[in-house]
């Protein structure tokens, strides 16, 4: 079996790629996709620690399930906001959308 740290390295790499995507992309949908990547990295981490450290305890799997819920809620509401903003501003580029700046 592959050691724990290799799973963690994969998870860290996916997470950092997600961070880069969130910080650098201009399109709101692309940013949401990057956030999904980060949440997936979190899940890999949770399950890796669950398997290697406490496989008899249910916490790792239960937490991963809750991460799924959060990811789904985030995607649903986030994409709905993107659609609503597009309807009003005809743009999904985050820099064009500065309603709060007044």
């Amino acid at each position, binding site marked *: 079996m592959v050691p724990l740290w290799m799973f963690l390295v994969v998870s860290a790499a996916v997470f950092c790629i997600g961070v880069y995507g969130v910080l650098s992309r201009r399109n709101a949908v692309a940013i949401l996709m990057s956030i999904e990547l980060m949440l997936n990295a979190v899940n890999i981490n949770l399950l890796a620690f669950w398997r290697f450290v406490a496989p008899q305890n249910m916490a790792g799997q239960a937490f991963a399930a809750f991460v*799924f*819920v959060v990811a*789904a809620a985030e*995607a*649903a509401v986030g994409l*709905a906001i993107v*659609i609503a903003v597009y309807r009003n501003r005809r743009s999904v580029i985050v820099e064009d959308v500065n309603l709060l700046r007044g």
Partner: protein
Amino acid sequence: MTAAVNEWAFIGVFMSVAWILPTLPLVVSWLFRPRRANAIKLQTYECGVETVGDTWVQFKVQYYIYGLVFLVFDVELVFLFPWALAYNQLSFFAFGAGLLFIFLLADALIYAWRKNALEWA
């Protein structure tokens, strides 16, 4: 443990081999079929008239709403399947917990229904 590993090894081999079967007729067809393409033939098919405008026409938001309701129910199953699986070992309290869970989601469906979000119009 080893038994489960074997089952997943089967799935792994299946996934890495099974795609060959549908690809095979495509390859055979690629070897034998004629190639006489021209610009007119490769045009987008649209009832015989030339296509007008962009392919990315504006779609109704209704499609998104259906996807949304589906997503919510799909995630619900993450919890309901373990619940159903362990149901025989659970106490009556578990039935109540599952009932509350389902009721909260049914609320969402009723809301969507009341707001006419489920109409195809």
